[in-house]
């Protein structure tokens, strides 16, 4: 009994950790990307974007989740997807504005908000100065990031999309991590 009492913290850590590990090894939703997939963001019953926006409408992650939501329902053929039906159509520049709102909160813990902002600017053919500034902000804050340069990412996506169109397949340009 004395031994158990002395070791209670470490025992709790291991019991809790092993239980969670069993879930992680067996459930698909433990993929690191799960929270930014359409199941998490567009589920009509409850999704993280709508819940966050209602609870904390002015916070960085709420704006960012809504930007991801919008990106999943914008572009050719996407509005017709079942999970996008019943949602307001995505307005021009809406994704860009939502990410700008997210960044304007001053929260810089979300690397992908900075990264995707540069991508969206490139997709909207923004001026090179704006694109360079956005990329500089991302690079300064995350100098060790392993992500591709956004210009290269968009170039690759466009090439893939062009070849996909030639073979009758449409590919996503948005990087929504």
């Amino acid at each position, binding site marked *: 009994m004395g031994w158990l009492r002395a070791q209670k913290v470490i025992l709790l850590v291991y019991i809790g950790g092993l239980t969670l*590990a069993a879930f992680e090894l067996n459930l698909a939703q433990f993929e690191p990307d799960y929270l930014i997939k359409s199941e998490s963001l567009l589920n009509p019953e409850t*999704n*993280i974007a709508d819940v966050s926006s209602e609870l904390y409408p002015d916070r960085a992650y709420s704006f960012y989740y809504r930007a991801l939501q919008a990106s999943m329902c914008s572009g050719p053929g996407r509005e017709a997807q079942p999970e996008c039906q019943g949602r307001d159509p995505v307005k021009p520049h809406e994704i860009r504005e939502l990410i700008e709102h997210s960044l304007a909160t001053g929260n810089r813990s979300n690397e992908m908000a900075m990264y995707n902002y540069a991508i969206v600017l490139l997709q909207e053919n923004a001026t090179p100065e704006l694109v360079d500034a956005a990329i500089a902000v991302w690079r300064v804050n995350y100098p060790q990031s392993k992500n591709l340069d956004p210009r290269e990412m968009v170039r690759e996506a466009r090439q893939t999309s062009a070849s996909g169109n030639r073979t009758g397949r449409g590919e996503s340009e948005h990087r929504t991590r």
Partner: protein
Amino acid sequence: MNAMGTISLGFIRSPRADFLWFVALPPIALLIAFFFHNTLPYVAQASVAVWVTAPHHYAGWVRGYGLDEDWTRWKNRLILGPIILIPSIVLGTAMVPVTLGIVFLLWDHQHSLMQQYGFARIYDFKAGTDAAFTKRFDFILSVLLYGNMLITAPLWAELWIAELHRWGLALDVEAIRQIQAMSWMILGAFAVIYVGHVIAGAVRGDRFNPMKYLFLLSSYGLWYFVSWQDSFLLYIVAHRIMHGVQYILMVYWYVERKADRTGKTPLLLSNLSLSRFLLLGGAYAIVFHLVTGGNLSHFSFGLINSLQMDPILNFSLEKATGFYAATAVSAASACHYYLDSYIWKIRDPQIQEGL
């Protein structure tokens, strides 16, 4: 100890030192955090880990592994702890990274709350205000204050709401609001009980140490304030400075007091055995190597290269380096959390000698 009626002032070090390091430090840490938030890139928060968090781990090593008394007393745990924890961290990093992240976040919170609770206990010990049930009341107050912050503050609610979605346990907005309201009600109800306990104690003639309450107010003031801001950087910087600096000072004072009172530990480092001194030298070499931009492969005994060569893992150099670094950082934190869970029992007379 300075007694005035029901008030009994007691200090961990001295009035001036305590006001500076235990009452004023949290607001100072907040100012520093705002400086980081407003002027420095996000990556700068990593420097706080290097210059504050790593040294506070080192202070723990000095106490646990550097003092003969502690070494003799907890030899089994000091040896077995890292032997069990480090392979667990390696396996966790490789196989269940989400689990490892959740466990570390929760253990870090438990560790942080217990450090401030421990300091509160020291204040009662020093002032002789450790009345019946005070320990239990303070513990429940700490757990409820910290738990309420995790449940209701947007910075933490965003995290657990997201995790519930991952687990397929997503709650709707109404349910979340009800849970948060319930948390505030429980805290409020206990606050009334706590005040009643203090008043009843005063009527009985128990004394209390206002320094303890000032310290708790300052600490929880920092945590609650940053948890309602929309910046994880603010939390990381302010919390790490408060937690790390107070811990480093506590270890230093503990060792010094032990030396004064028992004569067993004349100076911080002079009582180290040769083998432990060599270990510290090795640690210094690693830090020096990293600070001067040295290649990790040079002291990893080929570990990084072997990860690259492994036909199953087939890591790139970057991935191998990242794996090595993530494992080392997590392992050091795990050992520190475990060490602190048993070397700071205020009820222990041998520990009281150092307080």
